[in-house]
């Protein structure tokens, strides 16, 4: 039996000690005004990250070596599990995903320590003190209540219980790390905001430091959510891509607030306004990502009883959340009144549009929060067991998004400080007329009938596209060659806003022009759905590495053309005996053909679900546009120019 688990735990303890030093030493430095003490923050943050990396590598080793004496490995792995899934099983359950969370957190801290040479030493010290405090809390939580290295001695199981088959999938290898990168990345924005507040440095320079970090976290969060939606779509076997499930909501809330924060930071950087509001948003964004990660992981969202069944974990989480949120709000309450925002702006101005953007995004996040927590509160108060259905979330969320999209158009075009409706109207009237025409035409083109919801959805999406492109044309002075010469952050914004439009189009189309049907099919049977004819060629068996499955071969014809042959499966995993539906999908930009096997029926037939999903890919394509846009914005010259200049200054 190898000692690797003990080394892993030792590395965790070392990381905890370094985390304590990471806040203790620079804090003394700040108190005593000793720069050499503050300077310790950087190497300590790097050291903490290295030890956490060692620790997760040790856990990976235990998984790969099938060390079932480690109970986390025994519960979530199996000798027959393919190696890639043994690695991703690290974040398949509570303890390991918390370790991953911590590792990524420390990597962000390390990145801040390494890539912020231009920051004044006291600022970087404060930022790392705050990150160190948060890290200490969560490392304690990890070691105390959720240690992934605990052994099951002396009776070591001969075989592991296997990873939940739902998680044996490529989507689950990439989705959690990306999402967590986003969650914990928001800690940087949070630490920057608090550090600036404490140090009395809430200025344009702070906003400029903070922006690329916030954008980076937002990019990860955007991709993480999109990956989760994509995974649910093909893996859960019934073609849904968003369920308003508490777990999804938990990731959407910080995204909404982070999006508000991005926009508010823009105002703070360019105009020195909204400072305390920006700080508050940074606090909320990180608090919501903490709430998200831990409420999901503690099981509170599925049931308050899950919380009660493991009170130690639950109480620890609550205390940590309380300290993080309460502590930062307390700092805010004391320090915010000293913050002065200088500068004025008129009612019609870019500032106002961005303010409205912020308010709408916050209201949307609030609605999601209420809908998510309401059943918990009711249950906790003993008033019964309820659930809030998707229709409620849709009826709240969609109108807010419509208004937000409508404001986006003039918002992009408006001048800072002061503008007039007359000028904005003049700029957009042509675009608006064109948009309305096309939007009304779209439902007729799709199925020959008018549908006001589709028309409205298309109108807001095209409005974003039209206004964005009109502004791009204006800013490049009507010369195509200049488009690529505009600064990166503007180009990024254009891409991200186009991404929003693309996602909206996808959502509208897939919600209105998808058709589905569940049919009973035996060999040779046919079913017609929309323009497509589905033929069941044959039924058979497949043996995989750790599962056996019933499989079907279904040909799909459009007219006389065969457009696809799909092989959906119904798997039975050997170790756990779990049954899994593996859908098969013929993908294209305009429609997905989705086939999944339901259950075996008498007389050698199967219940089969057939779906044609219009424009499905657009939903995620939009997210990719947003992410690429964010990435471009990070590359903007002015974030690096600052570094170069300050380097000269120190010479």
């Amino acid at each position: 039996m190898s000692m690797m688990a003990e080394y892993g735990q030792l590395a965790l303890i070392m990381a905890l000690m370094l985390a304590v030093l990471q806040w203790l030493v620079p804090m003394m430095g700040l108190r005593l005004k000793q720069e050499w003490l503050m300077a310790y923050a950087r190497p300590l943050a790097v050291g903490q990250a290295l030890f956490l990396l060692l620790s997760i590598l040790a856990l990976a080793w235990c998984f790969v070596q099938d060390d079932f004496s480690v109970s986390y490995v025994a519960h979530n792995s199996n000798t027959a599990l393919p190696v890639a899934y043994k690695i991703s099983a690290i974040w398949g359950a509570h303890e390991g995903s918390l370790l991953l969370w911590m590792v990524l957190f420390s990597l962000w801290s390390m990145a801040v320590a390494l890539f912020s040479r231009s920051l004044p030493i006291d600022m970087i010290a404060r930022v790392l003190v705050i990150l160190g405090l948060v890290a200490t809390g969560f490392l304690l939580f990890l070691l105390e209540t959720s240690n992934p290295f605990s052994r099951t001695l002396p009776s070591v199981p001969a075989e592991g219980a296997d990873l939940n088959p739902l998680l044996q999938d490529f989507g689950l290898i990439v989705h959690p790390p990306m999402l967590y990168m986003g969650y914990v990345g928001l800690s940087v924005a949070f630490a920057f905001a608090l550090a600036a507040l404490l140090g009395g440095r809430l200025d344009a320079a702070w906003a400029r430091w903070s922006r690329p970090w916030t954008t980076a976290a937002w990019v990860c969060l955007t991709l993480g959510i999109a990956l989760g939606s994509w995974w649910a779509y093909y893996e859960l076997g019934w073609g849904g891509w968003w369920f308003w499930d508490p777990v999804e909501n938990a990731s959407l809330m910080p995204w909404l607030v982070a999006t508000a924060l991005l926009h508010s930071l823009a105002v703070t950087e360019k105009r020195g306004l909204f400072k305390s509001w920006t700080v508050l948003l940074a606090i909320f964004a990180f608090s919501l990502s903490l709430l998200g990660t831990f409420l999901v992981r503690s099981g509170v969202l599925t049931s308050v009883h899950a919380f009660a069944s493991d009170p130690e974990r639950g109480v620890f989480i609550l205390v940590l959340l309380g300290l993080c949120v309460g502590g930062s709000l307390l700092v805010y309450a004391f320090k915010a009144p000293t913050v002065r925002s200088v500068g004025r702006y008129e009612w019609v101005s870019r500032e106002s549009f961005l303010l409205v953007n912020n308010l709408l995004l916050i209201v949307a996040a609030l609605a999601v929060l209420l809908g998510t927590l309401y059943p918990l509160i009711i249950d906790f108060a003993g008033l019964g067991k309820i659930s809030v259905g998707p229709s409620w979330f849709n009826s709240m969320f969609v109108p807010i998004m419509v208004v937000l999209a409508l404001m986006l158009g003039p918002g992009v075009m408006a001048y800072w400080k002061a503008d007039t409706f007359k000028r904005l109207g003049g700029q957009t009237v042509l675009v608006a007329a064109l948009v309305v025409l096309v939007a009304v035409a779209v439902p007729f083109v799709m199925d020959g009938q008018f549908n006001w919801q589709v028309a409205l959805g298309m109108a807001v999406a095209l409005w974003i596209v039209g206004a964005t492109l009109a502004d791009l044309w204006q800013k490049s002075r009507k010369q195509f060659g200049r488009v690529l010469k505009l600064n990166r952050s503007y180009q990024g914004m254009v891409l991200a806003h186009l991404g929003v439009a693309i996602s909206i189009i996808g959502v509208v189309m897939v919600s209105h022009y998808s058709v589905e049907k569940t049919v009973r099919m035996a060999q040779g049977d046919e079913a017609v759905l929309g323009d497509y004819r589905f033929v069941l060629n044959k039924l058979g068996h497949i043996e995989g590495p750790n599962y056996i499955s019933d499989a079907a071969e279904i040909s799909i014809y459009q007219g006389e053309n065969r457009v696809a042959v799909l092989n959906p499966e119904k798997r039975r995993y050997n170790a756990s005996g779990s049954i899994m539906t593996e859908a098969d999908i013929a993908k294209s930009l305009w429609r997905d053909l989705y086939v999944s096997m339901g259950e075996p029926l008498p007389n050698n037939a199967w219940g089969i679900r057939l779906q044609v999903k219009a424009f499905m890919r657009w939903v995620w394509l939009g997210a990719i546009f947003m992410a690429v846009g964010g990435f471009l914005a990070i590359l903007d010259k002015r974030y690096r120019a600052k570094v170069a200049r300050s380097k000269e200054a120190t010479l």
Partner: protein
Amino acid sequence: MHPKRKKRLLLILFLVAMVGTAVGLLMYSLSQNINLFMSPSQIANGEVRVGDTVRAGGLVEPGSVERGQEDLKVRFVITDGAAEVTVEYDGILPDLFREGQGIVALGQLREDGVFVASQVLAKHDENYMPPEVQDALDKAHKKGKADLESARY
């Protein structure tokens, strides 16, 4: 009052009123849009009106599942140990639907006392018991015990 302060106060009052209204509307629409969970005992007691959408949950009674020969219709009985309700469903049951397993069905009660489900949920875990179902079983169990006790005297 200083005009600047007055302006600020008005702004704050405005914001508070806005947020208050928003939260109020949200809460109201929430109360209109929730799906209550009902146990078989509660349904048998007549606590569910015909036509209301609720979630009903319990254990699938072993041997009660009947399938149509030519279509996807299925009928089964759910129980919490104290009462039983027949459920009808037309569609594909989830992967973990089994006799003896806890399930939750979303749907409406028909006049003849049959629960017509539009959705049937069973979680993706062999050992998982939907918490509402567990709760209903515990309650029915306790009630059964209490009835037994009181019958003795």
